[in-house]
Structure formats: structure tokens, C-alpha cells
């Protein structure tokens, strides 16, 4: 009997097999059932107006559209981030407790492949859920934008606004509809959830319980969301704008390295809500930033996991 060929250090094929299995596992755990209440929410907010909205005569229909986007993107952010934490925190400890991990690691599967496969599987499920929610968001927002366009056009024509004002008003409303910038906002939330999932992956490699992993990942999520505000408040003088000293710089750099700055993701999503211009380069930078953090967390996870004994 001949001996088999050596196993490559890193195999995309093996990673995809583990990722595919993770997707199947999560799908069969019926995680997508969460999408039903979210879909109801997205459709339901169609029927609610802001309490101060007095109809087309206020000429501020974009406020309505902003509210619509804010609620939907906020829901997507909370769902995707929480899902990233909980799913990742459950999967690896689950495999260890069930000893399924023994049977996987006793096959020619490098531990890095296993970790990356699990993370990719969770990211794929988040991506699928985000696509479904995005389709719903685009559909409902399109419907609502068209409604506002008709209302405002009729009103402005009735009042006798000049044609150029009418066109400008319509353009303003359309800018708050389903645009590429909105897609950037959705993408920013997906990237944020992926980074949080990578954080949960790292914690689950040394944690002894799922609860600890979830709680610690949630803490990182919160610190990441507020770290830029805290850094500004703690390390610079708001009145005189003094430069931070060396110790403050070191602490600030350490915090930035350990905890990802989620404000960067939020600012893109906030820009999408306000229909502000988002540069393609900003989005590309955010993608690179997310990839860098995911890469760092995966490598750290691997360092911990490669020496872990079962």
C-alpha cells in the first residue's frame, strides 16, 4: 500500500468544505427564521410617519426616508453583529464539547484551515442574511421614495414652483432612495459584523465557556464603538487642543490595535443614512481596514489554537 501525498499547509478547498458545512449547520439550525420578524419590521415601518411630518406641504419628505433607512440599517447592524458573536461563540466550543473536533483534526486538516473555514461559514451566513435584508430594504425604500416623489411633485405643481425647483426637489428626494451609497452602508455593517465574528473566534480559542466568549466579544464591540470618542476625550485637551504626551500616545495606540475602531464603519453607514457622498476610496480603505483586523485576529486565533490540547 502506498503512502499518501503530503498535506498542504493551507488549502482553500478544505476551508471551503468546512465553511460550507458551517453554513449548512447554521441554516439547519433555522437561524434564518430571525429574518421573518425583521422582514415584518421593514414592511411595517412603511405605514408609520414621523410624528412631526405634516404631509408634502412641509417639503421635508427626506426626513421620512432617513428614518426608514436609519431603522433598517440599525436593525441590520444589530442583527449582523449579534449573529456574528453568538454563532462564532457557539460553533467552536460546541465542536469541542461534542468531540466532533477530534474527528475533524484527526483527518489531514491543519488547524488554520478549520478556523478560517468556520469564520468564513459564519461570514457567508451573515452575508446571505444581509443580502435578503438589503433586498427588502431596497424594495420598501424604493416604494416609499416613489410615494414621496409623487406627493411632493403634485404639491409643488399645485403651488406653482418653477420647473428647476421641482427638479431639484425631486433629486433631493431621490438621493435618499436606494442608491449606491446606501449599499456602502450595508457593506460597512457586513464588514463590521465580520470583524466582530473574528474577535469572537479569537476569544473562543482560549475561552472555557460560551457565555464568556459572548460577553467578552460584546464588550469588545462596545469598546470598539466608543473608543474614538474616549480617546479624544481622554488624550487631547478640548479647549487648548494640546498634543497627547508619550504615555497617552502609547495607551491610545494600544487601544486602537487591540480594539477595532467601529466608529469608522458607523460613519460610512451614517453617511448612507444622511445620503452624503461616500468616496469609493473611503469604502476601499474600510474594506482594507476590516481585512487587516480579520487577518490579525485569525493569526492570533491560530497561535492560540495550534497549541491547544483536547
Amino acid at each position, binding site marked *: *500500500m502506498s*503512502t*499518501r*501525498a*503530503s*498535506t498542504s499547509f493551507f488549502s482553500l*478547498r*478544505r476551508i471551503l*468544505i*468546512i465553511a460550507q*458545512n458551517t453554513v*449548512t*449547520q447554521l441554516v*439547519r*439550525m433555522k437561524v434564518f427564521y430571525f429574518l421573518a420578524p425583521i422582514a415584518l419590521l421593514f414592511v411595517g415601518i412603511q405605514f408609520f410617519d414621523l410624528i412631526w411630518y405634516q404631509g408634502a406641504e412641509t417639503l421635508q419628505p427626506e426626513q421620512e426616508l432617513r428614518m426608514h433607512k436609519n431603522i433598517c440599517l440599525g436593525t441590520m447592524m444589530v442583527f449582523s453583529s449579534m449573529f456574528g458573536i453568538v454563532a462564532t461563540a457557539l460553533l467552536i466550543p460546541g465542536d469541542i464539547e*461534542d*468531540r*466532533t473536533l*477530534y*474527528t*475533524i*483534526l*484527526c*483527518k*489531514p*486538516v*491543519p488547524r488554520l484551515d478549520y478556523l478560517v473555514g468556520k469564520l468564513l461559514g459564519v461570514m457567508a451566513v451573515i452575508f446571505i442574511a444581509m443580502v435578503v435584508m438589503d433586498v427588502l430594504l431596497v424594495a420598501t425604500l424604493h416604494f416609499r421614495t416613489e410615494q414621496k416623489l409623487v406627493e411632493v411633485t403634485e404639491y409643488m405643481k399645485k403651488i406653482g414652483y418653477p420647473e428647476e425647483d421641482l427638479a431639484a426637489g425631486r433629486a433631493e428626494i431621490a438621493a435618499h432612495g436606494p442608491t449606491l451609497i446606501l449599499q456602502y452602508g450595508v457593506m460597512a455593517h457586513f464588514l463590521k459584523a465580520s470583524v466582530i465574528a473574528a474577535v469572537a473566534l479569537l476569544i473562543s480559542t482560549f475561552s472555557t465557556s460560551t457565555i464568556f466568549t459572548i460577553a467578552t466579544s460584546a464588550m469588545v464591540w462596545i469598546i470598539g464603538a466608543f473608543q474614538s470618542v474616549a480617546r479624544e476625550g481622554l488624550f487631547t485637551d478640548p479647549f487648548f487642543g494640546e498634543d497627547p504626551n508619550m504615555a497617552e500616545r502609547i495607551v491610545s495606540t494600544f487601544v486602537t490595535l487591540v480594539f477595532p475602531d467601529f466608529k469608522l464603519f458607523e460613519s460610512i453607514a451614517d453617511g448612507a443614512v444622511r445620503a452624503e457622498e461616500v468616496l469609493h476610496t473611503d469604502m476601499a480603505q474600510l474594506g482594507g481596514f476590516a481585512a487587516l483586523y480579520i487577518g490579525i485576529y485569525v493569526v492570533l486565533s491560530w497561535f492560540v489554537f495550534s*497549541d491547544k*490540547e*483536547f
Partner: protein
Amino acid sequence: MSDVPAVEAKNLVKDFKGAFKGKKVRAVKNVSFQIAPGEVYGLIGPNGSGKSTTMKAVLGLVAPTSGSTSIFGRNSLKVDSRNEVGFLPENPYFYKHLTAAETVRFYGKLCGMRGRKLKERIGELLELVGLQDARDRRLKGFSKGMLQRIGLAQAMVQDPRLLVLDEPTAGVDPTGSREIRDLILELKNRGITVFLCSHLLEQVQQVCDRVGIIHQGVLVNEGRLDDLIAVENRTELILENASESLLDQIRTLVDVTHQAEVVSEGNARTTLEDLFLRETMSDAKEQAASK
């Protein structure tokens, strides 16, 4: 047969951190043994004796504190060594969301198998372990015995040269247990090396060529089973249809010669397992015939 042992442990030592910082617990103490290719080797010992740790060290799931373990000459800690191994853990749990066929397919793909070859292998293995009727059932509803069988199927998926079985019949009924035992013997006939840990000493005795006895982390005895259990100054003579007069003649001969002594005599006994299987199998056959 190759000179390279299928499994080799050289001066294996494994320490675990104790409950208190700094205090270590030595689970395996300088254990050395070899398993030749094609051999069935049983490692037996009481709970907490270090047999599972030894097995995990062989599989690369734990790193030795000192010493080394290898599989077909390759260091167990290297991923390459696992190309040749199939492992069935004690009380295995697999992904409950997968069906029997999907489970075998998943592990087969992890071993680099694909396409028609994998498809055929899945069919072969499910038939071998008697799960062809449950191939599309999810593992969530499987009994312990069925999980053990699917565990065996996944362990054998890449046709490994070495099978490591930790309590392979735990939780399996006597019929299933006998089938697993027969399967081990069949694998042995096919030249596959089997390394097994079991508490069921009778079963170890039935299938193993060599055994190692581990106690408090020390390999206290090791060797060919026949050599270890044979009582050198006693001889067993089993006769069939012997008349009482023939037995009297033998007793008299022994008395007269004064060269030996009859220690005990009586009817040869079957095992409880054989009796159980005879009863249950004949019952099943009668039911099948009446249908």
C-alpha cells in the same frame, strides 16, 4: 511487510497542569511501545490510567511533554501523519444536522476525496456498517449504536492503513458489538492495523494480537496475547462426545502416572454473548420465516 512500525511511542511522557499553579500531574510516564503494520493492538487499563492520553498523543491531539509518537514513521504532531489514520472516539457525536451519507461525504472531502470515487465509497461504507437504510436520516435521531457505526464509517472513509478505536463498542448492544468485533477481524485480514482501547477485556482478548496494560501512567506489561495469558504449567483438553468410561480412563491414567494432576473438569461453557446471540438471532429468524 515494512520495517516501519504503524505506531511507535518512544519514552512518552505527558504532564498536565494541576488545579494549583505550578503543580503538574504526570498522566503518562515514559511509555514506549510499537505496533507492527497489520497488527491488532489493545491498550487496556483502568479509568484514569493514561490510555486515552496515550491514544491522543498518538493522534497528535496532545503534544508530548517529552518523548515522541509517530505513525508510519511520521511524527504524530505533523498533519501529514493523519493521512493514514482513521479515528473513532469514545461516545462520538457528529454534526447532528447532517445525514449519514452527508457525514461520510464531509469527512471524505476533508481527506481530499471527491466525485464518483467518494460517492461509491459512501455506499460501500454505509453497507459495511449496516446503515444503508438510514443513509438519508439526520444523525439527530440516531441511537448510540448507530452513531458508533457512522463513526466507524467516517474513520474508514479514506481507506486508512491505521484505525484507532477508543471503546468501539461502548453503548452498542451485543449484536452490534459482535458485528464490530467481526469487522475488526475483517480489517485485520485486509492488512489494516488496529489500535484499540477497551474496557471489555473479553473483546480485547478475542481480537487483539498484542496487548499493553497501562496502570497509573506506566506500561506495566506488554506482549503477545497468547504469551501473556497462557498458564505455562497447565494444559487444556477439550473433548467432544466423550463417554464417562473414557473420562474415567483418563483420570486413572493421570492418577497412575503421578506426573500430572486434574485441576478441574466439567462441561465446556459457551459465553453469555454467544448464548444471547443464539437466542436473539434464532428468534429473529423465526419471525422472518413466519412472515
